[in-house]
């Protein structure tokens, strides 16, 4: 009896040591430039021939609203606009997978349910003295049906940035025409 009782204690103490020792630390590459730094900068930045920085910021906030974002933060003195929106995150493939798991094993698999998408738009005067530059970055957090965070990631699809800048170009034009 005694020896049986001892076993779980040994197991528990080993487990607790393992648990306490697996505190994650910051990865060494977290705060260094990498091979994608320059490519990302180019993908996320465009130059606009606006006379004032305010003109570009106003056009940019218009696009954020067009896309259904709510403004979280603005600091025009340093060209900062931050917006976010909560959206559905249901993925058809995941739903199909969950149905298969439920039918075959009776398992209740958690699938992605909601997401928060954040965007920060940063403007600055161009080095050449003419026009302004805008760099936009997106990221998202996804929660599953159990309310647990299932994904946290940057959004780096080139097509998304191209489409965003097309919309911004139009908005800058409309702003210039005061429409």
């Amino acid at each position, binding site marked *: 009896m005694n020896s049986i009782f001892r076993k779980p204690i040994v197991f528990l103490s080993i487990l607790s040591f393992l648990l306490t020792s697996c505190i994650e630390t910051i990865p060494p590459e*977290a705060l260094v430039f990498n091979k994608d730094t320059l490519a990302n900068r180019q993908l996320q930045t465009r130059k606009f021939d606006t006379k004032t920085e305010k003109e570009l910021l106003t056009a940019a906030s218009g696009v954020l609203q067009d896309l259904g974002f709510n403004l979280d*933060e603005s600091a025009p003195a340093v060209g900062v606009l931050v917006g976010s929106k909560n959206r559905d995150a249901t993925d058809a493939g995941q739903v199909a997978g969950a149905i298969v798991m439920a039918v075959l094993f009776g398992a209740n698999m958690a699938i992605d349910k909601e997401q928060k998408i954040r965007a920060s738009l940063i403007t600055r005067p161009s080095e050449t003295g003419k026009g302004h530059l805008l760099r936009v970055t997106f990221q998202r957090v996804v929660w599953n049906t159990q309310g647990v965070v299932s994904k946290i990631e940057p959004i780096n699809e080139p097509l998304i940035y191209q489409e965003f800048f097309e919309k911004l170009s139009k908005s800058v034009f409309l702003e210039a025409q005061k429409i």
Partner: protein
Amino acid sequence: MKTILSFKKLFLVLSVFLLASCETTSSRLFDTSTNKSAVELRSIQARAFDTKDQNKTLRTIIATLQDLSFVIDKADMELGTVSATKLDSSNQSLWNKGYALRMTVSSRPVGNRTVIRANAQFNITPVVEPKPYQDFFVALEKAMFLTAHQVE
């Protein structure tokens, strides 16, 4: 035999409670487990740059954070502060869902220089080791075209 067993169980339960209460709210609020004094932390987290241009400094900090894949959360020109979050999923696995690195960077003029201080949290732990801050200031030096000096 039975009473001995229940005593052991009681001891186990009590010791678990004692272990759980080791880290108090106060120790977490003041981050006492990091064993770093305010002076030590500042020497790790702060550098001085030879510039008086607050606006350009803040814009450069923002641009550097963006280069390091952060999304800006907020910025304040008057106080010279910027906060940003980096979400990374590059090492995603079954156990690892990616990480969130949150950083606040402040800049304030001191004489002819600007002192820039950064502090970061990795998921739910404070970042107190010197290396990540050295990396950050190396990145910032490149963007500022200036040398980062240790703050005395």
